[in-house]
């Protein structure tokens, strides 16, 4: 316990990041309690009203409360983070373990695929995937994630190929343990610190890309309170209702910044060597 307190005292990024992300998670969980209105509750009488005591962030073109919509938007951001990163981890870690452990042709194929997705523009590739599987928030999350697992695969591959020559793996082999058992019981646990760091570093990118695609009209569809969607519809009202563009944007920047801080903090804590890159 004292150790944890000491870490928190020393690691400023981690402290700030945890607080900011924790606040975001609380907002997302209790959005329905905090929000004064429902996110799709339209009131014709208060269209495009500036911020007031009734509507803290003003109202949009349908008379919906922007404050409530921004709060509910945090749920979408977290959904993107959880779903997106799970897919990336599943693909990247599995491929990384397999290619690092078995080497040879498997390794070459996986490395080639990783290089392929790594070197092409992610937004373009996800747009190509969306053109196949269709628009929508979940499809967008899938599209982003199937093209952004390369970093997981690379890091896990490197760890695995150095771990597999360690004595404890050789011992396991001598005791006739099966390959899957060695991979999951001996090697995977040793890669988890690196994976945690990568997760926290890839969350902001995933959220940013998904929001960008929603902004382009390919992701979340109306009346979703998605921040990207809110920003793209705000462009029409920039002159009369700038609050429509300001608040969802601030929420997005807050979220990205919070996860960035957390990621930096975790990196210092868990994997100092990654820092050099």
């Amino acid at each position, binding site marked *: 316990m004292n150790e944890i307190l000491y870490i928190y005292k020393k690691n400023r990024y981690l402290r700030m990041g945890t607080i900011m992300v924790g606040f975001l998670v609380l907002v997302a969980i209790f959005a329905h309690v905090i929000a004064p209105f429902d996110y799709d509750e339209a009131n014709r009488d208060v269209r495009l009203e500036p911020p007031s005591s009734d509507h803290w962030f003003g109202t949009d073109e349908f008379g919906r409360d922007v404050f409530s919509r921004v709060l509910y938007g945090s749920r979408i951001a977290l959904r993107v983070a959880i779903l997106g990163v799970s897919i990336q981890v599943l693909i990247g870690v599995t491929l990384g373990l397999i290619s690092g452990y078995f080497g040879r042709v498997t390794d070459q194929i996986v490395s080639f695929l990783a290089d392929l997705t790594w*070197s092409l523009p992610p937004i373009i590739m996800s747009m190509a995937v969306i053109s196949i599987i269709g628009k929508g928030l979940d499809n967008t999350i899938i599209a982003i994630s199937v093209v952004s697992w390369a970093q997981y695969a690379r890091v896990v591959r490197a760890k695995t190929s150095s771990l597999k020559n360690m004595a404890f793996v050789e011992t396991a082999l001598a005791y006739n343990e099966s390959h899957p058992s060695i991979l999951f019981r001996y090697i995977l646990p040793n890669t988890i610190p690196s994976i945690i760091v990568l997760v926290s570093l890839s969350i902001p990118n995933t959220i940013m890309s998904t*929001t960008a695609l929603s*902004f382009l009209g*390919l992701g979340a569809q109306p009346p979703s309170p998605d921040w990207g969607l809110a920003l793209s519809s705000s462009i029409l009202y*920039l002159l009369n209702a700038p609050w429509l563009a300001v608040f969802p944007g601030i929420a997005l920047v807050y979220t990205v910044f919070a996860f960035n801080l957390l990621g930096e903090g975790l990196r210092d804590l868990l994997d100092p060597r990654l820092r050099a890159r």
Partner: protein
Amino acid sequence: MLTYTARRLLQGILLVIVVSILVFSMLHLMPGDPVELITDRKVPPEVKAEMKRQYGLDLPLHQQYLRWVKNILRGDFGVSIRSKTSVAATFKHRIPVTLKLTGTALLVEFLIGVPLGLLAAYKKDSFFDRAVITTSLLFAALPSFWIAVMLIMVFGVHLRILPLSGFSSAKHYILPVLSIALGGIAGMLRMAKSEVLDVLNERFVFTAYAKGLDKRTVLVKHVLYNSIILILVMFFLSLPWIISGAVIIENIFVIPGMGGLMTQAIINQDMFVVQGCVLIISILTVLSNILADLLIAALDPRIRVSLSEGES
């Protein structure tokens, strides 16, 4: 060097071939028959069968692929389903626009980011260093499209000094280029700083000082030259991200480039246009990656040596 160039080109060609196979299969991965996508429901089945033959969709897949590649090599990307015009003709107008936009943005990033990074490294831990790095961290968290919306709000709507959309005069460049570059400058300068710091700690820098060279000569001839190489690498490697950024920004400012075209094509399910866009942007990216690698190899004697050693 020659073998390295050849090998790097070969890798690039392999990459392009794999991408082309993926792009080709997009049409077949989509739910439903390609002909159904192109035609109306009312079109009689005989006409559809005829179209299938005409497009070669009744052939085995590998023959279809070869046919498709042959057409593309001849500059035939098919016909847009929506506008019924040749996709290649549309590209001819659109590609230069995107290249101009991304090129200008990259240049701005480079010209602002690198000098700031050099200064920050040189004056490490000073007030200037900390101010620049903190600002850049903040900008890195700002999504380009939000920057764009804010810039439009300030300069286009309220001050009314810059145009909001289109791409006809130099003034039209300012807001889109800034939107793309602001985030990129942040990345570029942090990278430049860390590269310069690395070089400052190299042994040849100490050697240069030990030889009795003055500070200026060391910084310009040794540190700057060696940092530029490393920075150039990142410069080319960041190209895919800049292109991604341009896709979004083009939509906001209604710039008639590849990004706007591609977004509309996806929404309209205009498959041939999407295929063409993905293929062209991918090839551009692969090319710039190869260029980056060759450039480094040509400029840095150490990499050149390690390459030729690796080959023997």
